[in-house]
């Protein structure tokens, strides 16, 4: 059974041999279009010498399943055979928290598995996971290694699995001018305007926007820009660590961030203790939400999150002070909760954090648009290296970026 996408039915085929010299490849492609189908060449390896065969992997698409079947039958005569004509192989998990040997390791791309001759779309797409299949319920989804339960049916090997890579065209991203994923030498104004447009469009469309932020947002004096974004509906979810929240609350309570007075830039005497005092006060009150409710916390990013019902998730790390009561110190638990809260996200803006950006990048499917803003190009490069190809990176200081972003959005927001 072919897979059904929003627009059409499709099936990947492979053709090998001297398919250029024999004109078999153009013949197959012509046959597809003449019959009313369309094709995408996914992979094409041309033989180096005249004796070397070439190889093409072509995705054939048609508006109906019947037409696709007709086209596949026609081109199979010319040697184009479906990549997968077998069901995926399932093995029962014999040990909790582990995959069976030879497990299929997922990508962040849209994936399907063939079960009883039918292609099932894999849910909760995430890279570096396994795929668990519930044949009785006709359902398949990604599962993290630690979450494997005894007896679950897991896909092993590559047979009966097909992956549909996202198009990497710039137009589908909305970042037409940015041909390279990381840009240090591109006009920031244009890039910022495009991020603003994407955020604006997402908000109008009712899509959910996630901000993943680091404490540099506070250190650089960008709290007002962030709170504007929250108040104006541009943030539905915030992922951060202990530091962003701690320094934001420190600033709200003491006017300093890591002891530096944000208005004057002066180092305040004993200011280095401020963030500990802030954390301690919140811990004494029983949490950030409680601090807001009791009037002890009256401004800042976390205050606005509570006031505007922005769902925030603080994931802990080994160097955390305190931490704040809301911080989830169990990293596996934090991962699990992040996964749950990523399922409905369609736009993700990562600002000035390497650790959390990469963590979230690892959890996101490839079709979620990601913009990563960091003064350090390596953050964006690391994201891309780890497979989050959809990331568009802006290498810039956080404050001027957020200032320009807010100015752009303010012009579009009535």
């Amino acid at each position, binding site marked *: 059974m072919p897979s059904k996408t929003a627009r059409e039915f499709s099936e990947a085929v492979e053709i090998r041999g001297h398919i250029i010299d*024999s004109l078999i490849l153009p013949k197959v492609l012509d046959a597809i279009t003449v019959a009313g189908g369309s094709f995408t060449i996914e992979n094409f390896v041309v033989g180096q010498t005249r*004796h070397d065969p070439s190889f093409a992997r072509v995705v054939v698409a048609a508006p109906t399943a019947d037409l696709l079947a007709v086209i596949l039958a026609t081109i199979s005569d010319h040697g184009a055979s479906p990549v997968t004509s077998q069901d995926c192989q399932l093995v029962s998990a014999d040990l909790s928290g582990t995959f069976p040997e030879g497990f299929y390791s997922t990508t962040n791309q849209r994936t399907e598995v063939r079960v009883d001759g039918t292609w099932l779309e894999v849910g909760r797409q995430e890279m570096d996971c396994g795929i668990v299949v519930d044949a009785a319920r006709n359902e398949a989804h990604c599962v993290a290694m630690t979450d494997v339960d005894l007896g679950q049916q897991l896909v092993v090997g590559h047979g009966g699995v097909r992956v549909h890579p996202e198009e990497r065209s710039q137009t589908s991203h909305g970042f037409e001018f940015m041909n390279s994923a990381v840009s240090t030498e591109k006009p920031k104004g244009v890039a910022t305007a495009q991020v603003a447009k994407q955020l604006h469009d997402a908000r109008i469309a009712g899509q959910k926007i996630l901000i993943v932020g680091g404490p540099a947002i506070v250190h650089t004096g960008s709290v007002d820009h962030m709170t504007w974004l929250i108040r104006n509906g541009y943030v539905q979810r915030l992922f951060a660590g202990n530091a962003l929240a701690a320094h934001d609350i420190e600033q709200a309570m003491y006017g300093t961030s890591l002891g530096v007075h944000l208005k004057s830039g002066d180092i305040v005497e004993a200011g280095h203790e401020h963030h500990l005092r802030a954390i301690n006060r919140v811990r004494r009150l029983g949490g950030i939400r409680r601090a807001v409710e009791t009037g002890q916390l009256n401004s800042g990013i976390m205050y606005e999150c509570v006031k505007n019902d922005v769902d925030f998730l603080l994931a802990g790390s080994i160097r955390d002070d305190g931490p704040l009561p809301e911080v989830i110190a169990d990293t596996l638990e934090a991962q699990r909760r992040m996964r749950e809260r990523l399922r409905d996200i369609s736009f993700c803006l990562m600002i000035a954090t390497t650790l959390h950006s990469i963590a979230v990048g690892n959890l996101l499917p490839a079709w979620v648009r990601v913009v990563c803003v960091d003064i350090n190009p390596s953050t964006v490069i690391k994201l891309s290296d780890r497979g989050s190809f959809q990331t568009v990176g802006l290498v810039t200081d956080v404050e001027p970026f957020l200032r320009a972003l807010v100015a752009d959005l303010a012009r579009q927001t009535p």
Partner: protein
Amino acid sequence: MSEQARILMCSPDFYGIEYEINPWMNTQRQTEHPVAVSQWNDLRQILGDLGAAIELLSPVAGLPDLVFTANAALIYRDRAICSRFRHAQRQGEEQHDAAWLAAHGFTVETLPDDHFFEGAGDALFCGDTLFAGYRMRSQATSHQLVAKRIGHRVIPLELVDPYYYHLDTCFCPLRTGIAAYYPGAFDDYGRQALGEHIPTLIEVDKDEARSFACNAVVLGETVTTNTGCPFFHEQLRAIGFAPIATPLGEFVKAGGSAKCLTLRLDGEDAASWRVQHVDGFSYEGATE
């Protein structure tokens, strides 16, 4: 001619039209067996007289088409890639072909069960390249496998006219860079592919193609065909070949002719991989 050519033939003791698996065959239009035997003997005589060593495969009752030895296998050096016939009526031939080839020094290879491949009937070298017919009998995927195994360029050509169900009924390599073909048996892609890879292509006209002009046995400069191909013979003479006509009408009734009745065991003259011996020296591959 270089080293003595070796040709496998099978006497037509049990030849006849016992089934219909191509448009030529009609069980109502039987062969005249004595005539068939005489035509086959004449062909054998001609090829022998031209210096070829004729080797014989024993005929088997109930396998009338075993006489068409071209379909036994594709010969490549000392390897025989044996056929997997599409039609059940001919599948019984496979074991006899393979046994003979194995007994005569060939390394016998087969393709997977689900890959139809009909040997030299559908796979012919011209120079360095193997031209391979598909759709009617052999499958394109079989040729992909053959290409991988022998490491030569293989150009699959779709056969579009059921009367030309094997490539050797409509295409005949004469020597590296020269071949005859009947354009009507191919589609535009096939004609273009042939044109791009074979510098000299002789077009055989429709009537003479029907007389199996392309189903010729090439031995050096001599080209042996069925009768009824005078224009083709003129074309051959014009480029220095010496055509010979011999009546093979009884075999045309089954859809075969001179080439179908032979399997060149030492490689066709047009195959550049063939080791040729000239004046005591041997060299591999003809020059382009």
